[in-house]
């Protein structure tokens, strides 16, 4: 029991690791603040392109979405970070992570938003167009607001996934929260910094988990 506490809940080691981990947390937050909006906007664009009249564009979007959803995010990240340099493209770890996350998450957001748009009946389109709104205006002012509200729980739950995916950045040595924790673990030979990282993720993401549960139940009722 004592060994367990010492290995996983060593307060002294946690305190020692705290400064570097807080810096890591800062980078995690920066990554989220950039990756979530980027991939969400890209996802909306993909979904909208998935509704255009011109069929090849729609097919292209389906291929993009299904292809990127069938590659594990870590594989995508390694591809961006380790394969692109062979083509002479060298990205900073931050840019590599951002690109991989956006490619992956935008395909999921795209799929969710598309379902949302499809959930809006053609009556709304007819009503909007009949009042003289253009296609784009109908989309922005009438369809998307309803579509996004209809899939709010799925959007929130995908956002949680994107935030958790930022931890993969540690694999390509981007110094976010988990990387910092793992550094501290390897110099102290003690897992308490990882426990601390888990606790920090929990503090930030537990409210989001609860919120998603509430949204899912609210929509059902």
């Amino acid at each position, binding site marked *: 029991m004592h060994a367990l506490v010492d290995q*996983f809940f060593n307060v002294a080691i946690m305190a020692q690791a705290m400064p570097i981990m807080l810096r890591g947390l800062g980078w995690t937050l920066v990554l989220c603040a950039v990756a979530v909006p980027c991939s969400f906007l890209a996802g909306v664009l993909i979904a909208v392109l998935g509704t255009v009249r011109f069929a090849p564009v729609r097919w292209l979007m389906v291929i993009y979405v*299904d292809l990127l959803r*069938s590659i594990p995010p*870590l594989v995508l990240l390694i591809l961006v970070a380790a*394969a692109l340099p062979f083509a002479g493209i060298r990205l900073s770890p931050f840019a590599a992570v951002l690109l991989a996350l956006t490619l992956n998450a935008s395909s999921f957001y795209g799929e969710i938003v598309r379902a949302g748009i499809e959930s809006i009946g053609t009556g709304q389109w007819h009503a909007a167009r009949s009042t003289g709104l253009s296609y784009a205006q109908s989309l922005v002012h009438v369809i998307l607001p309803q579509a996004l509200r209809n899939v709010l729980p799925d959007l929130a739950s995908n956002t949680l996934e994107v935030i958790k995916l930022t931890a*993969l950045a540690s694999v390509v040595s981007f110094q976010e929260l988990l990387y910092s924790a793992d550094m501290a673990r390897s110099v102290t030979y003690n*897992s308490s910094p990882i426990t601390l990282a888990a606790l920090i993720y929990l503090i930030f993401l537990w409210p989001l988990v609860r919120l998603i549960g509430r949204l899912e139940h609210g929509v059902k009722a």
Partner: protein
Amino acid sequence: MDGGAAFVDAFFKPALIARYAPEIVSGVGQTILIASTIVLTGLVLGVTLALIRSLRLPIATVMIVIFADVLRAVPPLVFVLLVYFGLPNVGVTLSAFAVLWLVLSLVLAAFVEEIVWAGITSVAKGQWDAARSTGLNFATTLRDVILPQALRLSIPPLTSRTIAITKNTALGSVIGVPEILNQATSAVSFSGNATPLMMGAIAYVVLFLPVVIFGRWVETRFAWRRA
């Protein structure tokens, strides 16, 4: 050498494809093996937890909710590192395969529990009334009336969540499970060429694209239920 040839040489070099094909294929085998054990364990455990929760015993409910929340809130890689590097220091040594199986099964179970529980609670109360009014007991009502409806409601989210978690088997490369990504990255460092990585990526697409398309089919097949 022109651009096209240089590209092929860096990313799809025939000699390297032949050289590393066996490794990638064995990685595919590992990925399939571990993914199927995770899906089996996670689904069984998750449904069991949802059933236990339906008994509405206060202590069990609190424990299940905490379990499900923690495993859904923390990135799985954190648990992988915690278990893989932490347990040996307290005298428990698990193989990398076992660690990956344990962590991802528990994560999947957490999501499955929440999805199935949501399904159970969304079955109309009148279904319980009808079943109980004909003398069916709690267990029979749950098994023959509530669960079939709850699972049907749960199929689309269960499918997409299961697919997402099986893709996480790539995390095994971080701790040395010889699955596809692990085979590919070590081949890259041996060969100094991106070809094995491209082979790995293609292997994933071949493996998961049908699954993703199946998931899309399931979504539309059961979509009427969500309205």
